[in-house]
């Protein structure tokens, strides 16, 4: 296990080290200490390595992650795992706004709660939140799944495309073109798989499914109030 202490190396040295792990290298486990809210920790990783961050981070932790598994033992700032392509990011604490923004693949797990705009513009990422999410979550969500074990703030799924939203608690309000949809056995199984993969326990029977009504897919003057 390689220890990288952010109080004695620079961010560039940290990321450079993590980004330059050779494919097939035996050095697979890294621990980052003293993050102290620094930004852009463990961004742009490309190898299936394990990185544990001990403490709270600033913005864009694990940004554009590919293949790596990143565990944050603490809270994360805005944009955690933004534009993630693959791999896994797991946060034991809370996430700030825009968690998983524009993510294309992989899984983001937040054991605590996420703030506003969780999953904004998501493009294939799976996000599982043990707590609640803030307003404007899944805004313009194109594909992927967002699972919320707690409540969702206002305007959930505004302008949503084809992403699927599962919420166990209350939804303060639904955004434009986002409607409740039927939870079939197929969806329950899919949801169970996501929860298992996230290693978060929740009863699938409590969840409701939300998605696009597909009425805004082509402009029509009678929808003008929705704009």
């Amino acid at each position, binding site marked *: 296990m390689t220890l990288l202490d952010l109080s004695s190396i620079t961010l560039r040295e940290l990321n450079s080290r993590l980004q330059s792990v050779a494919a097939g290298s035996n050095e697979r486990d890294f621990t980052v200490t003293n993050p*102290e*809210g*620094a*930004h852009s920790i463990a961004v742009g990783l490309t190898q299936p390595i394990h990185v544990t961050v001990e*403490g*709270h*981070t*600033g*913005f864009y932790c694990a940004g554009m992650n590919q293949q790596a598994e990143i565990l944050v033992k*603490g*809270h994360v*700032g*805005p944009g955690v795992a933004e534009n993630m392509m693959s791999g896994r990011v797991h946060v034991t*604490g*809370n996430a*700030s*706004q825009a968690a998983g923004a524009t993510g294309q693949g992989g899984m983001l797990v937040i054991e605590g709660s996420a*703030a*506003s705009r969780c999953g904004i513009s998501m493009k294939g990422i799976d996000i599982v939140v043990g707590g609640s999410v*803030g*307003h404007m979550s899944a805004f313009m969500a194109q594909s992927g799944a967002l699972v919320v074990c707690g409540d969702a*703030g206002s305007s959930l799924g505004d302008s949503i495309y084809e992403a699927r939203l599962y919420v166990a608690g209350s939804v303060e309000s639904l955004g434009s073109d986002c409607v409740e949809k039927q939870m079939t056995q197929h969806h329950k199984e899919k949801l169970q798989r996501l929860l298992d993969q996230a290693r978060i326990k929740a009863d699938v029977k409590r969840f409701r499914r939300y998605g696009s009504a597909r009425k805004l897919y082509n402009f029509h003057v009678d929808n003008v109030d929705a704009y």
Partner: protein
Amino acid sequence: MCGIVGLFTKTPKLQSRLGDYLSSMLIEMSDRGPDSAGVALYRNPTTGGATKLSLFAADPNYAWSTLQGELKKELSDKVTLELRGSHAVVVVHEAFPVIQAWLAQHHPELDIVSAGDTIEIFKEKGLPKDVVDRFDLRHVSGSHALGHTRMATESAVTTEHSHPFSTGMDLCLVHNGSLSNHNRLREKLKRQGIQFKTDNDTEVGAGYLAWRLREGDTLEEALTNGFRDLDGFYTFAIGTRDGFAVVRDPIACKHAVLAETDDWVAMATEYRAIAVLPGADHANIWEPKPGTIYAWNHA
């Protein structure tokens, strides 16, 4: 665009370190605010009808002791004056309107940066670490404080344009974000008798709050009215004599984080400013919800 920080002590033992901690928090926000910095400290409450003012003189060789002499002669025999960088903290045993009128007539070159019982505002152009040094903030004690680092968006970089802006007695405002309807609002507030020194949007926010409070709103009512009347993206931290309040606009794009332990409550634009505080690792950390007022007060 900017960084804001706030620290509220819950236990007396932290009060002697207030300036030191706030300075560290402020310096963490240098990247997002390189143009100017300012702090509002709440400390050393005056007694018996005295008023405390923070005054700024553009002239680095200003004759402060002469001013002190004049104040003693003209207004009250009890006048103390403490110099901090380009500012002076003056305590005069007289009501604020009287002092304000006298200064306007006899010393229009001085800028009244703050007034009240406990507030002291210091602000200046330059990097946060330079501002901390110039005002010797590391050794200041007090019960609570706000700080601000500025990256000017549309108005000029000057001392007067720096935050915090004082909105009334013991009241101040720091702001991260950008208001979009401040110009017309400034004209309306001028007609209500609110005075402005700059073209800065934050000063309009401060003036708006001062107006609402003057009209009888509680702070909470004033901020709630603000959701309707102020347009744009903002995170506000407001300092009051007894504590501080934090609020974000309903769209809430400008980040803010709150943290609390048994010893303190802190607020910052980025977590790394809170990370410098003792016990931050295990603090209760959360993000303020949009359109919601959070407030803490010393009883």
